[in-house]
């Protein structure tokens, strides 16, 4: 018997639950709108390391260790770690996994990695392949700028459609438990490319992928957008989320005030980030702090978290290719009676 409905949606019958979470962010994110929700706000984004790449890996390790501690379990009971990041060959995750010494799967889903790792973790826990699974990802502004854009000290102007890579990490520990936040459904996205080539306009490139996954999720589960207290996309930014609202309306779905975007929300308007935040850490840090906190307080009952990723590289962009994008959706609830 298959544990899936419709074309793209998985159903988790054994209810993997969030038993621990942790978020670490940089100083700029700490000054943003969610400063008080994050578990740890760094004073210095080098985190005592010699390079930003090393700092990124240390932050990710800190998030995973923090989540394990928060879950109050022994590290040896974590049977699988699913992690990914934006660095070439996902060095931040693999280097963190080297220190942790737990069974590890390295993932690359660009900024969709938080949802991707949650889905993989939920599958392992639901299927009885892992007692506990750690799902982690994150990004660092300075290492991402170096790899994808220009040196930090270069005096250029950022285009008005650009987004600011979030320095932030998040980790969720999943396991089977009696109560708590549960992962109910997951909708696996398809790669969507509507021929946007501008690497400074990721929101526009990723919005069709978010629309495709959200539409598939609603069709597969028979739900309407109003059935969720919060539909949260990862890092579409201001422009991307406005485009998603338009695209959904075109397909006959109305996204109301229960829709928001992590990239749009994370920074204060005075922080000059143009379209808002982006990066793996954007959705990961907010999901693992703000969203779980509000679910645990029963201020939110069910949330659809859709992390979006742009699957390009600097080489593909320079060669004039368009930006393929992906979005994965995870349906999270507290109480969770409807499965």
């Amino acid at each position, binding site marked *: 018997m298959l544990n899936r409905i419709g074309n793209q949606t998985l159903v988790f019958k054994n209810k993997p639950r969030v038993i621990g979470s942790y978020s670490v962010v940089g100083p700029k994110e700490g000054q943003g709108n969610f400063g008080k929700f994050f578990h740890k706000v760094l004073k210095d984004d080098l985190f005592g390391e010699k390079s930003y790449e090393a700092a990124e890996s240390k932050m990710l390790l800190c998030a995973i260790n923090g989540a394990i501690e928060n879950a109050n379990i022994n590290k040896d009971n974590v049977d699988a770690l699913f992690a990914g990041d934006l660095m070439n060959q996902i060095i931040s995750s693999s280097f963190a996994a080297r220190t942790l010494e737990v069974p590890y799967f390295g993932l690359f889903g660009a900024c969709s990695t938080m949802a991707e790792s949650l889905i993989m973790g939920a599958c392992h826990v639901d299927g009885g392949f892992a007692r506990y699974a750690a799902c982690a990802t994150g990004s660092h502004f300075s290492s991402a700028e170096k790899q994808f854009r220009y*040196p930090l*000290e*270069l*005096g*250029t*102007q950022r285009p008005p459609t650009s987004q600011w890579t979030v320095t932030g990490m998040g980790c969720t520990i999943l396991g089977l438990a009696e109560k708590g936040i549960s992962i109910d459904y997951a909708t696996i996205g398809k790669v969507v490319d*509507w021929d946007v080539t501008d690497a400074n*306009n990721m929101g526009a490139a990723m919005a069709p992928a978010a629309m495709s996954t959200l539409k598939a999720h609603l069709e597969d589960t028979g739900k309407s957008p109003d059935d969720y207290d919060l539909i949260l996309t990862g890092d579409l930014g201001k422009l991307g989320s406005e*485009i998603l609202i338009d695209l959904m309306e075109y397909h006959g779905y109305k996204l109301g005030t229960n829709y928001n975007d992590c990239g749009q929300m994370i920074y204060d308007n005075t922080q000059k980030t*143009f379209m808002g935040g982006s990066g793996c850490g954007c959705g990961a840090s907010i999901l693992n702090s703000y969203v779980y906190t509000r679910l645990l307080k029963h201020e939110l009952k069910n949330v659809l978290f859709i992390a979006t990723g742009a699957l390009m590289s600097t080489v593909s962009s320079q060669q004039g290719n368009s930006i393929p994008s992906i979005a994965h959706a995870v349906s999270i609830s507290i109480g969770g009676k409807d499965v």
Partner: protein
Amino acid sequence: MNIEERNAKYNAYVEAKMPKTKPWPSLFRSFWVGGVICCLGELIKDLCLYFFPYMTTADAYTWALISLIVLASFFTGIGVFDKIGAYAGAGTIVPITGFSNSIASPALEFKREGLVFGLMSKMFVIAGPVIVTGVVASIIVGIIYLFI
């Protein structure tokens, strides 16, 4: 609607919806900052001529350029230049200060990858195309000049 039609329609929609840079405020900011940098260059030249009466005007201009390059690199190093550049845009890029910044900033960024394969090889990653264009253009102009 086929895929190409949909993509063209979507890109036209995005183009219409996306925020644009406002030209007049940008022009004003680059004009006044660029103007101040040029005045500073003139001031350095005049001071050179004033304090060193035997210096030729051509040498005084060279000293002005060197001073601006050093100043721009210094401000890049202390992390101020990028903030001025974000405000002024072309105002700081077009004068020689922009060239100085474009070499100093990758040198700072890639020094962690070592002296040879980091700093030295990545130093011209942004300024390189400018140098190549300059050299190629001067060769073409030189060849034309030979025949007229």
